[in-house]
């Protein structure tokens, strides 16, 4: 039971948050002790110095009495003074060491260690021996016995007597002692708080890290849709964990996209290449079995080569589409679209006219965007290809124009078969070819590629009503792209 409780505690004490909290608490405590020690030593030292001076002054006064009035006069003076002074302490000792008079029980010095001056020599207060000591006395107000500190000087006289005068260090020491005690206790309290606070911080951090760990483990185990829970915070208010969580989620988003792209690449290759490969195989098989002349065989092989080239083209388109959808490829540079569309109009005009359609290009000059020239050209070319393919008669109009706002549009309008309004979004999805288009050659990914290229440029592709034809309306593909600022 206890072990169970202590185990998470032990793992918590190993966390970084806890260690940081402890390190700081230790640092503060160490600093506090140093500061306190310094403060205490200087305060007590100063008080001691003052008491020392006061005691010496009294000793000098008494020495002159001792000198002029001998031991009896001194004894008198000590008895008188001891009776009234509370902060000054006196002891007069006889040559045998017994206390003659004074207000202290004994001299707090080992008198046998002190050199005795020669008999008949001059009394010299400068030779006094100083000492710090503590003693007990009742408090003036409360009467409680308390231990106090004092500083005293002892002077041995040539007559064998000795005089000890001391001065209490006063209430300052008590205050210093009191402050020291408070700080010790406070420091212990701070340390205790630091331990508890550190554990709590560690637990909170551990909880949030746990969420991230659980998420990454779930993703590693194959749950690609899993995301770390995000706290609701005002933008810019998050801490480093929120930032980490957001980055992790963004990374998972990207990984999921890449994995999905890899998966759809496989699917697309299967979907788009299986049928042409099947046709190719059947054709070759039939020729191998039935061809009766070298000419038949050569025809079959040449036909197979053409189909194989088609397979390679589709394969390239699928790969390019997958890379675009995974957010790869494409280098956007400043490009004059008017120029590019003009060149493409030039490239396609003969083929459109050859197909018996009339062609007009209406291009506004100086449209500048950020684009990958090659990809954008491919996208427009795909749309023109489609227009030619699905327009049996009438016309195709290519235009490039500025829209209101910061956008521009490249429009390819035809008077062809058109697409019913309700199916327009559907055909922009991958793999979709309308039944009516199955008889036409093509892989059906041209439109998907155009969509992906538009998105790469921060734009979109929309399908609208095109030019009128006898009983209906053709299609207009509109590539909307943001103009360069």
């Amino acid at each position, binding site marked *: 039971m206890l072990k169970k409780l202590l185990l998470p505690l032990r793992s918590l004490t190993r966390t970084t948050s806890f260690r940081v909290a402890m390190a700081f608490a230790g640092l503060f405590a160490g600093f506090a002790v140093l500061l306190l020690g310094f403060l205490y030593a200087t305060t007590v030292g100063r008080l001691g110095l003052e008491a020392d001076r006061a005691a010496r002054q009294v000793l000098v006064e008494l020495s002159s009495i001792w000198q002029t009035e001998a031991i009896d006069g001194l004894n008198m003076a000590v008895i008188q003074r001891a009776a009234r002074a509370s902060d000054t302490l006196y002891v007069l000792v006889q040559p045998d060491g017994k206390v003659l008079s004074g207000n202290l029980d004994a001299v707090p010095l080992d008198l046998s260690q002190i050199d005795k001056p020669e008999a008949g020599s001059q009394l010299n207060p400068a030779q006094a021996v100083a000492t710090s000591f503590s003693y007990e006395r009742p408090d003036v107000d409360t009467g409680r016995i308390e231990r106090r500190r004092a500083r005293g000087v002892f002077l041995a006289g040539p007559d064998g007597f000795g005089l000890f005068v001391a001065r209490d260090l006063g209430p300052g020491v008590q205050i210093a002692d009191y402050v020291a005690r408070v700080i010790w206790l406070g420091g212990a309290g701070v340390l205790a708080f630091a331990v508890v606070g550190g554990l709590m911080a560690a637990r909170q951090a551990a909880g949030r890290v746990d969420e991230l760990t659980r998420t990454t483990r779930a993703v590693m185990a194959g749950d690609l849709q899993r995301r770390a829970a995000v706290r609701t915070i005002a933008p810019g208010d998050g801490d480093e964990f929120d930032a980490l969580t957001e980055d992790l989620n963004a990374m998972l988003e990207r990984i999921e996209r890449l994995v999905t792209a890899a998966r759809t690449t496989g699917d697309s290759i299967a979907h788009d290449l299986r049928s042409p490969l099947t046709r190719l195989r059947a054709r070759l098989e039939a020729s191998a079995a039935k061809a009766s002349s070298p000419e038949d065989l050569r025809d079959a092989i*040449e036909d197979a*080569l053409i189909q194989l*080239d088609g397979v*390679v*083209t589709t394969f*390239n*388109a699928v*790969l*390019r589409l997958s*890379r675009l959808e995974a957010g790869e*490829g494409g*280098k956007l540079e400043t490009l004059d679209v008017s120029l590019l569309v003009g*060149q493409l109009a*030039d*490239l*396609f005009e*003969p*083929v459109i006219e*050859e197909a018996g359609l009339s062609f007009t290009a209406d291009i506004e000059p100086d449209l500048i965007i950020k684009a*990958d020239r*090659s*990809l954008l*050209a*491919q996208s427009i*070319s*795909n749309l023109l*290809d489609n227009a*030619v*393919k699905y327009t049996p008669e009438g016309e195709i109009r290519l235009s490039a124009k500025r829209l209101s706002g910061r956008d521009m549009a490249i429009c390819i309008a035809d008077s062809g078969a058109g697409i019913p309004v309700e199916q327009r979004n559907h055909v922009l999805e991958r793999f979709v070819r309308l039944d009516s288009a199955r008889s036409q*050659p*093509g892989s059906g990914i*041209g439109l998907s590629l155009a969509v992906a290229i538009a998105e790469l440029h921060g734009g979109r592709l929309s399908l609208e009503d095109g030019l009128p034809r006898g009983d209906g309306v053709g299609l207009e593909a509109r590539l909307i792209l943001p103009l360069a600022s």
Partner: protein
Amino acid sequence: MRVLIVEDAGETALYMRRALEEAGHVVDLAADGPTGEMMARGGAFDVLVFDRMLPKKDGLSVVADLRTAGIATPVLFLSALGDVEHRVEGLKAGGDDYLAKPYAASELIARVEALGRRHEGGAASTHLKVGELEMDLLARVVRREGRKIDIQPREFRLLEYLMRNANQVVTRTMLLEKVWDYHFDPQTNVIDVHVSRLRSKIDRDFDKPMLHTVRGAGYRLEA
């Protein structure tokens, strides 16, 4: 033409050698980067064909080093990486042309020959002449047998390229890349239509056709 092929896939290399030899060229083979680099430095080749990915030292590094060493022999890169940025990388490393796998033998031969011819010089001339067909690049005038032919600007560029590569096969992809600077596969036959329009202008009123279609490969302008 002497051609060095640096390609690690043995069967592909042999197939390429046979195709180029049948077209009348002398071919040497190398199977890895350092060997290819050594041979390219030592031999007098007209065109170098490098696979992008080679054992020991990749094709891009080898070609970059050859260029740094001052060897200017034209380089054709072959690569399974066919996207535009790969092409740009190849050209930046010092390649002169880039061909994505898989390719037709005719495409390979046409590009190798175009590179070899370009190296022979003459690119700076302002007057082109193929048989009785003449082009003045400054006045932008085309004449056949002295008669002026009315030609559109886009047909002018197409004809210029064909004349610079006269008597050679040029493929549709080469025309799209070199004349229009596009690197994708248009599904419709845009190039064919342009060529047939050009042909109607330069051949229609004359007895002998100059612009020929080479089946399964491309076009050839003959004197």
